[in-house]
């Protein structure tokens, strides 16, 4: 009898355990976790590990034989070129994001006003610069700016104007780097803004019209407030990507002339890989983190605040 009771208890416990295991696996959060686990592992392997390894490298001396703490950073702070690169990275990122946002905003409105039937092909065509691998499209731009075969200079010279040293002059070179970045990145803004525009309810525009709002008032009090979160997130995302840009500068100017088109990533590569000072290269690339973190905190805090207000 006792034996039978114990057996039934064990069976009940087993069933209970199975039940709780089943419940755990049936829980949405568990399924979600399991489904995202491969991605988490991928990020841990390809993002977290290299990030912590970069921190480790940044604290070693040039020959990577001894720990030097923050010496690499203090060394950088004393270098004139470092502050020049900081300034250039800021000019590059802010100017490029600004123009990408403006162009994206205008083009999104233009596309939005095209009848639905023909809109798809316009959307597709306008996305082309964004979907081509940047290294390839930048190579095409390099040929357009090429000293011997520049198509732009050929046009200028054929109408009697003198050629421009597109990549040989500091200011023209900076202009070219930003231009190519805007050309590649503006379609991303366009598509994000277009999605945001499509989600604005028509009733709001109708109400504004009834209230007698003009074009500017509709834009200011309806369109922009409704798009604000998308504008902020897109700007934040683009700022991060633009700040960390490597391929455009690398292919177009390699930081020349006189290091005056270098951004963090290209200068880190120059010193770390080409110059053999891997710890200093790691320190330069890590310097982007605090700058971008501060920006991200401010923008995300604003978005959350307005989300709560809503």
């Amino acid at each position, binding site marked *: 009898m006792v034996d039978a009771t114990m057996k039934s208890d064990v069976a009940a416990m087993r069933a209970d355990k199975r039940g709780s295991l089943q419940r755990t696996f049936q829980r949405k959060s568990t399924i979600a976790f399991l489904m995202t686990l491969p991605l988490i592992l991928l990020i841990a392997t390809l993002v977290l590990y290299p990030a912590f390894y970069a921190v480790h490298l940044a604290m070693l001396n040039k020959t990577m034989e001894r720990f030097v703490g923050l010496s690499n950073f203090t060394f950088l702070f004393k270098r004139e070129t470092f502050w020049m690169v900081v300034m250039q990275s800021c000019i590059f990122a802010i100017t490029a994001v600004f123009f990408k946002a403006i162009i994206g905003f205008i083009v999104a409105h233009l596309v939005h006003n095209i009848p639905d039937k023909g809109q798809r092909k316009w959307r597709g065509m306008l996305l082309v610069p964004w979907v081509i691998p940047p290294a390839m499209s930048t190579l095409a731009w390099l040929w357009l700016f090429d000293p011997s*075969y520049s198509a732009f200079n050929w046009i200028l010279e054929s109408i009697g104007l003198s050629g421009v040293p*597109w990549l040989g002059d500091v200011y023209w070179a900076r202009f070219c780097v930003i231009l190519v970045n805007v050309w590649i990145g503006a379609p991303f803004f366009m598509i994000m803004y277009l999605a945001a525009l499509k989600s604005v309810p028509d009733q709001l525009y109708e109400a504004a019209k009834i209230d007698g709002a003009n074009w500017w008032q509709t834009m200011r009090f309806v369109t922009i407030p409704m798009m604000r979160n998308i504008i902020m997130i897109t700007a934040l995302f683009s700022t991060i990507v633009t700040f960390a840009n490597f391929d455009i500068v690398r292919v177009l100017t390699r930081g020349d002339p006189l290091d005056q088109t270098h951004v963090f990533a290209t200068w880190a590569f120059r*010193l770390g*890989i080409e110059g053999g000072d891997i710890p200093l290269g790691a320190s330069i690339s890590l310097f982007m983190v605090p700058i971008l973190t501060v920006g991200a905190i401010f923008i995300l805090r604003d978005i959350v605040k307005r989300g709560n207000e809503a």
Partner: protein
Amino acid sequence: MIKKTISRRRFVATGAAAAAGVVAAPYVSSAQSGGKLTLGLWDHWVPGANKATEDVIKAWADKEKVEVTVDFVTSQGNKNLLMLAAESQAKSGHDIVALPTWQPARHAGNLEPVDDILADLIKQNGAVNATVEYLGKIKNSWVAVPATVGSQMKGPASRVDLMKKLANVDILAMYPAGAAPKADGWTMDAFLKAAQDCNKGGHAFGIGLGTTSDSVDTAGAIFNAFGAVLVDQKENITAKSEKVRAALDYATRLAKEYPSDSASWDDASNNKWLVSGRGAMIMNPPSAWAVAVRDAPQIAEQIWHHGMPSGPNGRHAPFLPYFWGIWSFGKNKSAAKSLLRHMSTRAAAEKMVEASKGYDIPAFASFTDFKTWAEIGPPKGTMYHYPNPHNHQILSIAAAPSPHRIAEQIYTQGLMTKMIVRHLRGDSMESVLSYAESELEGFMRT
């Protein structure tokens, strides 16, 4: 419980090996009794040049019964430097690797000494040039074997017709095919005058002032011709010396005759300048000529490779050697040494030079008489003087003889070309020299 962990080193090693595997398809010899050997060699610009190296290696592998795998890694995008950095970090990878210019010094701590090989090679073939010794012999020990493949000279490649017509310089008379140079009058002053005349005639010398190797090598050769050293062997900064001032002054006067956007030139810009017919001269190995043979034969027929002009400190030609090194963590060092001896023989070097159409130059002066350079054309004899067969130039490299860790920074960051560009755009001599001093102080870090 057995806990399996992947160490950081193992992880990087696997990644490096995977990356290298993607770079180029290897060939594998089936013989196995002599063990295995893996090589990460430079992927040559010249189509078909890798084949000669493969054949040389295969002949050795068949004889020694060693299973050999060769990965040809391109230097496009510095993939070869990335491979070297990854393997030296991981302490794992190929057994033998090709090391460009400054890499033997950078990785000296991870390279197997090869003094025994060099002692024998020098005994057989005679001495190597001073630049090869400076770059490959670190702290009195050879850390890598000078390679034929990839080693190159960046002397002038001139348009014979334009030089004669615009500057009245008879290149063929100074550098006749098959005979010793008669170039006593080919001085820095004559060079400057020719640059001015050609620029006036609409065919400027295509010399860059960027930070890539071609630009830096030319600036370095000019500095060396004036004996201008930025940091001496004892690590004293000597940027404000009279010799540096003289070199900078000359280089800036010369740079006024360069194309207006030369500050942004890379290693392809000068080639395009010559092949497009716009330039009377560039400083390059024969790769530009080889492209011209294919794309612009009428221009190729006028190109002649010859020596540098002489300055107060002699006639310096920029020489960029490649090396073959054995990782100290390699698994089959004795086989690696045996293979490197085989790859360094005169017969092997001749095959490699022939396959590269004369682009590659062995480090031994006694190997500069191969028939390839004398016979290749058009025009026949264009490359006769390219390997410096009459030894009338001093083969040197920019930033030597500064200590390697400083010289490498001077070179890779293009300090000399930056000094010229600054002076050219109007910065005073003193301000440029102060800038150079400040940069050099930064390069001193250990």
